[in-house]
């Protein structure tokens, strides 16, 4: 069975600041990151939709001990945002000092751009991820 939305298509769109997801024609749930079946009801009757890229921060961390190859990015802030459409997505938060960020940002509204991890010798090519910033 063919994918309605492959990683490659998702990744290329994200590089244009477009966040693509899948809307289920059976239960209306939105699935992102993409899967072959709806994350709620497992139906494969899905259509590609463009999401707002807006949401609220659910949780965060500042990373001070990086994996091999990510040293120059450190320290950096990782957030999980709940998108307005429902799903949770992981990205980075920019415009805030990783040394000073506190739990006060949990619940704050964010908007999305993107950044690209160029890949390393273990990964299968480059991979974009959301780069969030606080809306206010």
């Amino acid at each position, binding site marked *: 069975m063919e994918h309605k939305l492959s990683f490659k298509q998702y990744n290329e769109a994200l590089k244009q600041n477009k966040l693509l997801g899948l809307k289920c024609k059976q239960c209306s749930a939105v699935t992102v*990151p993409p899967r072959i079946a709806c*994350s709620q009801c497992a139906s494969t009757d899905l259509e590609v939709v463009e999401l707002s890229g807006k949401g609220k921060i659910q949780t965060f961390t*500042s990373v001070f001990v990086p994996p091999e190859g990510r040293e120059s990015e450190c320290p950096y802030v990782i957030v999980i945002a709940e998108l307005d459409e429902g799903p949770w997505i992981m990205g980075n938060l920019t415009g805030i000092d990783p040394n000073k960020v506190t739990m006060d940002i949990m619940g704050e509204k964010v908007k999305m751009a993107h950044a690209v991890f160029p890949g390393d010798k273990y990964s299968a090519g480059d991979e974009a991820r959301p780069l969030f910033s606080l809306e206010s």
Partner: protein
Amino acid sequence: MRKVVVLGVGMTKFSGKQDKTAVELFAEAATDAINESNLKPKDIQALFMGNALSDFAEGQAHMQGFAADYIGAKGIPANRYENACASSSAAFRDAFMWVASGFYDIVLAGGAETAAKMGTPLATRTFAMASDSRYEYPAGITFPGVFALLAHLYSKKYNVPLERLKKQMAQVTVNSHYYGARNPKAQFQKEITVDDVLNSFMVCQPLQLYDCCPFSDGGSAVVLASEDKAKKLTNKPVFVAGVGQASAGNLLSQKEYLPRLRSRELAAEQSYKMAGLGPKDIDVVELHDCFSIATLIALEGLGFFENGRAGEAVEKGDTKIGGKLPINLSGGLKAKGHPIGATGTAQVYEIVRQLRGECGERQVEGARVGMTDTLGGDGGTLCNVILKKGW
């Protein structure tokens, strides 16, 4: 289904970087387990070996056949289990099922890892491979990062102020080091204080160095046998009363449950049901304390304490010997060490010895039922085992 007994158990001392390969470490533990079972290598019918990262640590994949050959169990079927930090627990469960089914009578389950050998940057990178490489790793997620995300969620969801939660988490670590100091096989045999934890450097906010288990080298193994065979070899059979295993998608896919890990609730339910027991029946537990916050999440997910209340239990001493539920008397992953492929069967090693009454000053008097809990990745694998004294 036949009843299955854990006969002999073995584990190496867990340590930082040293010179032995994963196969050598496994072989030391396996040979001890076979000897303790009053068996010979030729009596072993199959090998179930956990190993997650030797491809990166040693350039060694597919070592399970070499391990069987190395210990003298030539030609037997040998499988490798890669379930991240739960690798040897998944191996143990499959070994149990093959004996319970009647297909084999005597098998060996275990695991080994040389994670410390990689050093922190490569180990951090390869451990992160157990997260979603496409939808999580691009943001730079690490394993401390995963549990740091969960710690903030836990604080907010259960309304435990971060400052108090961090003190509860620090006490978890202090307890682990207290027992690790009394376990000759532990990587860290030194007691520490709450202040030591709170003054250590920040790894991933809010987790500091002593909130995190170390990278470790080590091996562990256990012999499983059918009840009929076991009765001829031991008068102290430890029965496998229940097992459970469940999976989950990436961390984001678990949003309805976090900071709970749904795979733990599913696996625990299976193991309790198979054993015909519940949380109140458990006398001693080895649970997956890869990070201090993970201990609180595990204590709640296994049904021992209400959500958001495990930290209070730790403050009161409920999780130490003499308390309601003694946990991680081996020192846990934090102080005993966490050579990930060896961790699950090392937890079984500790519980078997607790049930046999062999743990000296960290013995739970009269322990009859024990449980293990092993987490792979960020919930992608969760295994539980319930063991019961058979005499």
